[in-house]
């Protein structure tokens, strides 16, 4: 457990540090955030044609309301947490790869739902938008990461190493 925890913390700190570097921002974070705005807008235009994306901003042509997808709302940090948690957990690399692909997809899909829901909540009621934006969606995205990780951990073949991480003391586990 200690090994998993320390590895997770180190990996997360390194990944987060990398995320903040100008190179990663320019080549990954900003393009991804812009793509997220475009994907969300494309989905919205299936039922609401008066929405456009400009860079990382989604704007309604009907009333001028716009949301800008900032750091923390682009799902990158949640992805890094999942990445660190899966890499730190003792599991075959094949399982890690499959888990990461499916897990990142699950996190990003929910994040698209977050962006779209906030876009409409903001047009409806700004107080509700703030509540959902600052508190509720942050918690839901982290819950999503945790659930994805739990499902993945359950499917990881048990080895001597992988008994460790979420393991309990023998007396507790064996009852």
């Amino acid at each position: 457990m200690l090994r998993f925890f320390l590895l997770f913390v180190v990996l997360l700190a390194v990944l987060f540090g990398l995320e903040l570097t100008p190179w990663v921002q320019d080549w990954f974070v900003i393009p991804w955030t812009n793509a997220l705005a475009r994907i969300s807008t494309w989905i919205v235009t299936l039922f609401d044609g008066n929405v456009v994306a400009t860079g990382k901003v989604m704007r309604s042509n009907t009333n001028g309301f716009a949301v800008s997808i900032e750091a923390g709302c682009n799902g990158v940090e949640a992805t890094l947490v999942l990445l660190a948690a899966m890499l730190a957990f003792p599991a075959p690399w094949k399982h890690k790869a499959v888990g990461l692909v499916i897990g990142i997809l699950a996190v990003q899909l929910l994040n698209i739902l977050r962006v779209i829901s906030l876009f409409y909540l903001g047009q409806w009621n700004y107080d509700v938008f703030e509540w959902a934006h600052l508190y509720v969606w942050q918690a839901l995205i982290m819950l999503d990461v945790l659930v994805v990780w739990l499902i993945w951990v359950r499917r990881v073949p048990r080895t001597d190493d992988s008994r460790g991480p979420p393991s309990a003391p023998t007396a507790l586990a064996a009852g």
Partner: protein
Amino acid sequence: MTDGTPPDQAEREGRGAKHFIKSPLTRFILAAIAWLPVTFGSWYLLGPVLLWPVRLLVQLICRIGLSDVVRGVEVGGSSIAFLTTLKPGEGMGAGFISVDVNMLVYAFGMPLFAALTIAAREEKWWRTLAIGYAVMVPFVAWGVLADFLKGIALVAPAAVASQTGFSGLQREMIAFAYQFGSLILPAVVPAVLWVLLHRAFLERLRRRAG
């Protein structure tokens, strides 16, 4: 009882066809989602009480390490106002700068942790809640302080920021502390804590799957 799980534990997890949903993981996820509105509502209403230790810790840190910049700290509900020794600058009027920080922004992990803990239905969950809360308080204080420091060192006009006397390296460190304290810690700490405090629960989930 083929896997050695104690009878009371098995009963808590609802084995024995009493539960419509058989997977303990699915049951746990649904329970956590169901508890979230309750814990969020309670957290919001009790915010000033729950964040009182955060305020004390922030006050203590300001007194010890930031007394040249912070004259005092005032609390209104779940917000905290840092009364600084910094002046607005020439032509901007008299008085001192104050910086408001919404503490709830850094404390949303509390209701998340509570929902997860209650949903897991482990023994002594009240104790687990108390431990989790106590561990989260310093991390919330981190976020609040980093937000304040960002406000005076990075966001404030140059005439104000220059009065802080922070070096370039210190400003970089404040920027990193703020980013880490706002983007990572508030969400990750409750999840990691929950995993660390529910190892037996997680082990049972794994055993059922395997």
